[in-house]
């Protein structure tokens, strides 16, 4: 009926050839689509992995972070994951080891503090005043509380702030301070505490002088 068949017309040949061409094009289209989804899945996985690795890295304390070199951390989160991505695109996948990263906190004492802090509804802070501000020890403590929020940033009310790491934070914090101020210092001191507690998602912030705290009726 076609090429080698007597009496077939060129139109019939073209029509059949057209179907073949159509199939080839269809196959091409399907390949594109498959490629798209494979890439999407592999890239999606890689992204999730990177996110996990990044999150884990960010959860490290400064001390732990100091034990890994920056170069190594970057390689872990870029090159290694690209390798996995290419494996997955090829149809292989063994990434379960990436979900667990070594590293337990060395500072057991502060671990406990974090736990206790987060478990509490009300926190009382007693602090000394040093040069019109908190003492260096207290400041170092506050510095280390930054791990209670995420390194991610959100925006609200014209400013950026860290996202919360936990669902619940102490809702009420009372700061009782003891010490002498020069004019103007007390306001800055109070403003500092308010701001810091505000960043830690504390809803009720009360800041008062030590003597005054004694007078509060029971």
């Amino acid at each position: 009926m076609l090429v080698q068949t007597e009496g077939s017309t060129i139109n019939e040949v073209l029509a059949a050839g057209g179907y073949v061409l159509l199939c080839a094009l269809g196959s091409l289209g399907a390949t594109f689509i498959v490629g798209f989804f494979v890439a999407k899945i592999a890239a999606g996985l890689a992204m999730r992995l990177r996110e996990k690795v990044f999150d884990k890295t960010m959860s490290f304390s400064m001390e732990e972070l100091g034990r890994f070199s920056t170069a190594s951390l970057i390689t872990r989160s870029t090159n290694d994951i690209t390798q996995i991505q290419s494996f997955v695109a090829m149809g292989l996948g063994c990434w379960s080891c990436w979900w667990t990263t070594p590293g337990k906190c060395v500072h057991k004492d502060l671990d406990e503090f974090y736990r206790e802090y987060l478990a509490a509804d009300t926190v009382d802070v007693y602090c000394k005043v040093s040069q019109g501000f908190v003492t260096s020890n207290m400041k170092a403590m506050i510095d280390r509380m930054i791990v209670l929020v995420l390194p991610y940033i959100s925006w609200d009310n014209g400013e950026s702030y860290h996202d919360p790491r936990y669902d619940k934070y102490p809702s009420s914090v009372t700061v009782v301070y003891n010490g002498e101020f020069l004019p103007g210092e007390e306001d800055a001191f109070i403003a500092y505490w308010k701001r810091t507690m505000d960043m830690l998602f504390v809803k009720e912030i009360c800041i008062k002088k030590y003597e005054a705290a004694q007078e509060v009726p029971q």
Partner: protein
Amino acid sequence: MKTLIINGSPNGRKGNSEIFCRKFVGGMQNQPEIHYAAEEDPAALAAYMDDFDNWLFFFPLYVNAMPGILKRLFEQLHPSEEKKVGYVIQSGFEEAFQSDWVCAILKNFNRRMGYQDLGIVVAGGMAGVRYMPERMNKKTFARLEKAGSLYEQNGVLDEEVIQQFGQLYRYSEKQLKRIRFFRSCSVPTVVRKCTTTARQVASGTTIGMAAPISGRPPICTTAPPITTVEIVS
């Protein structure tokens, strides 16, 4: 005029503050010494600092103020009428107003100690300086070098440079929209566990600043005042 630069970063030679110091002195003919609060005994460093007329502190913003390690050094310093002190603060947050609290504290500190103010530079959005390629930091570094050379000429941190660094004081609504848009494009699946509700409640606390920072608008207190804040003094 004998100047000493003090790097107040807990990261010492590895941090962004180190880059800041280096670029700053890079703009100067006679490069001053750099000392590290993280490496030296605070009492010894404070004693060493006595030999210098001007001190420039470079440090990162740690939870709204100077790092604890720098505060430790501050506690070893003595009041003096002759010393002149300048500060260069770099923060991860982009907006300069995030450093208002520390600026107020530093000004109070200067007043308490009798130090003369050489100016405070607040550089925001500096979290990635260490990792970014040179050309992305070009503007920042050029400004720092300029600040260094102008400091050498005039003996103060240049007002114009301070203004340039503190340009982004607070985001406008338009900027926020743009930021959110780009964020939503580049990291579509990062689900922010953000409880804006918690934040909105928290942001109700108004902030009373000690003294407005010169050259910048006073802190915005548009959020409704919350009643739970109670100051007994």
